């Protein structure tokens, strides 16, 4: 019982309940005004009608007085007073003594006013409750006083009934309205409780929790859905972060340990100065490797945090890809590869030139590193082109390729396939390429080059710019750069 009361109290204290209570109050107020006005109008109409009837009767009686004199009038009033009707009469002489009629006395309400009005009286036959009546004085101009009236007790009872019905109606309405408000707020409170409970669990660390939705598509569902999307993103970022810290622990601790070992070994070396020099050189070498890994990690993290506005440029993709490839072609030749550059002319894009350059560098470097050079058919092909209106860069080799099952995985940070563990590298090359692709709203596809691997860096069509002349007008501030 107290639990129920608590819940009711909780529901009653909600905004939803407050709002529905307010709505009910406004409705009742409006209804009361309308009903009150109707009641008053009806009452007035009815009273006017009675007064009109009485005025007509008064005219008849006064003409009778003129024609037949006092005797005739007394006779008529006595006759009219006799039937058990609704007519009320009182005829008195100048001194106020009653001559005829069915009223006992002049009603004090009328005595005071001296004109027509509403009063209550005690019916002659019986001692029941007093009745309500309407009466007017009739001016006979002879010192006689005549009051005629109508008993309106039936109307009063009727009006009372109506009033009771209305009040009852209002009462029922208020109760139903408040209960409705409570029910609505219970519903909302329940949804809110679910959301609160879910977010509390999420705050406690269970990032996989989602806010339940009803699937009916209301605004609360819309809210829950967008909160869920936000949670999805947060969970993704958190997982990424967790993965990174796990990997940092794993992949940075090992080289750090090696660095420490190198320093210690040099210290213990009996050869002295020469050994120290060698040891220090090795230490710096290892520190540089660590810095490289660290920088790559930080860059990926930065790319995933959002766009880099300051360093976005407009440039000719084909020319740039050819340019970067040219940087590598002597190194590739030396390693025994034929580097083919095949670029489409006139593909202008707006993007981060340096990062795209880094991505191409990583891909060519991977191709050189992971496929065997110096054999017939040891070729690397770098292309820049458009697919379905999207700028794309591809680097293909004829090396061992990557198994279909592993393709998704190698884009992740620090993933190095068993076969390549012995090769130098941070394991971050492809994930950086993927991050650069995401920064340009694109993606990385790993395809079979038959044989070998073809990596396609696909940028968004949004990066594409129609023509260099146009772009100068479209991009404010470009000319100033």
């Amino acid at each position, binding site marked *: 019982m107290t639990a129920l009361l608590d819940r009711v109290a909780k529901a009653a204290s909600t905004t939803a309940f407050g709002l529905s209570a307010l709505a009910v109050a406004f409705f009742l107020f409006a209804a009361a005004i309308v009903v009150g006005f109707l009641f008053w109008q009806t009452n007035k109409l009815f009273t006017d009608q009675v007064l009109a009837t009485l005025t007509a009767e008064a005219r008849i009686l006064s003409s009778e007085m003129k024609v037949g004199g006092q005797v005739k009038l007394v006779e008529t009033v006595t006759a009219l007073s006799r039937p058990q009707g609704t007519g009320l009469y009182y005829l008195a002489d100048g001194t106020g003594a009653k001559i005829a009629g069915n009223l006992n006395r002049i009603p004090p309400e009328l005595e005071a006013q001296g004109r027509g009005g509403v009063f209550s009286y005690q019916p002659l036959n019986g001692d029941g409750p007093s009745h309500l009546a309407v009466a007017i004085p009739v001016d006979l101009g002879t010192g006689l006083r005549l009051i005629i009236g109508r008993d309106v007790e039936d109307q009063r009872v009727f009006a009372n009934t109506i009033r009771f019905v209305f009040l009852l109606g209002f009462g029922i309405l208020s109760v139903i309205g408040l209960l409705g408000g409570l029910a609505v707020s219970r519903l909302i409170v329940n949804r809110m409780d679910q959301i609160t409970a879910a977010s509390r669990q999420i705050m406690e660390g269970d990032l996989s929790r989602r806010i339940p939705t009803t699937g009916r598509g209301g605004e609360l569902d819309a809210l829950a859905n967008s909160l869920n999307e936000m949670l999805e993103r947060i969970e993704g970022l958190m997982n990424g972060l967790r993965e990174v810290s796990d990997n940092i622990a794993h992949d940075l601790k090992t080289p750090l340990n090696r660095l420490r070992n190198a320093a210690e070994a040099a210290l213990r070396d009996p050869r002295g100065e020469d050994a120290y020099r060698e040891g220090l050189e090795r230490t710096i070498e290892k520190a540089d490797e660590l810095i490289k890994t660290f920088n790559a990690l930080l860059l990926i993290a930065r790319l995933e945090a959002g766009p880099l506005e300051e360093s976005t440029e407009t440039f000719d993709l084909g020319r740039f890809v050819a340019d970067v490839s040219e940087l590598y072609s*002597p190194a590739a030749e030396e390693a025994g590869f034929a580097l083919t550059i095949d670029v489409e002319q006139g593909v202008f894009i707006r993007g981060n030139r340096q990062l795209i350059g880094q991505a191409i560098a990583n891909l060519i470097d991977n191709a050189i590193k992971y496929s065997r050079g110096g054999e017939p058919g040891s070729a690397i092909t770098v292309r820049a082109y458009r697919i379905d209106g999207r700028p794309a860069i591809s680097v293909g080799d004829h090396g061992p390729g990557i198994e279909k099952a592993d393709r998704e995985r190698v884009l992740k940070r620090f993933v190095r396939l068993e076969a390549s563990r012995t090769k130098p590298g941070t394991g971050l090359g492809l994930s950086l390429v993927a991050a650069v692709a995401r920064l340009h709203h694109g993606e990385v596809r790993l395809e079979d080059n038959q044989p070998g691997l073809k990596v396609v860096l696909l940028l968004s069509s949004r990066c594409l710019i129609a023509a260099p002349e146009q772009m100068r007008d479209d991009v404010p501030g470009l000319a100033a750069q």
Partner: protein
Amino acid sequence: MANSGSSVNPTAGLPRRLGDGRLNSEGREDEGRTHTMRVLVIEDDKETALFLQKSLKENGHTADLAHDGEAGLSLALDGAYDVLIVDRMLPRLDGLSLIKSLKSEGNRTPVLILSALGEVDDRVKGLRAGGDDYLTKPYAYSELLARVEALGRRTAPEEQQTRYSVGDLVLDRLSHRVTRGGEHILLQPREYRLLEYLMQHAGQVVTRTMLLEHVWDYHFDPQTNVIDVHVSRLRAKIDKNFDKPLLHTVRGAGYTIRDGPA
């Protein structure tokens, strides 16, 4: 990322640069080698600042230190320095604001920005604020020295020079002709630009990263020593058939072109 370089040994093999007034074959003082520079290091980490001061001194330069932005700014405005080394994060006045105020005062001393922020955007922001070069921490000292010396040379008037010569190697910037001992050497456009940059900094050490940034305009890590292959191809053209090598590899630092021992 772009600045991690490939240096192994920061000072080994680096020549000590003293103002000994050696003359090159044309009888002109070889500024790059003999120029002693006054450097102002504005860096709040005292250990780093002292290390830089000591190292620069070893290489024949003098260095003053300032440990916060305000002190650094007033020193920079008062003293006639050849190069300023400015850390980006400084107490009292941050590095970028310092550079902005300095430039707005009309001071044209070249500035090398040191920063732990190595993101692509940060470099652009640093250069836009008026920095002349940007080096990301952690850096190799050899990289820093090479850049400081390149910046110090920048104020010298030979920027407008139309002809560079080292020994009997001559590069004519107007006709784009390269000759050695009067013999014409045919170079690819990129090889020409590589040689042009090296000769512009004749006598100085030029790092691989500097070559990548200035000859190719790339600010990313090429992963492998791609530059070495380009340099060795250039070397094959300019040094191979001649007695005296001019293009030298400076171990752990980069390359230098000079007439004389490396």
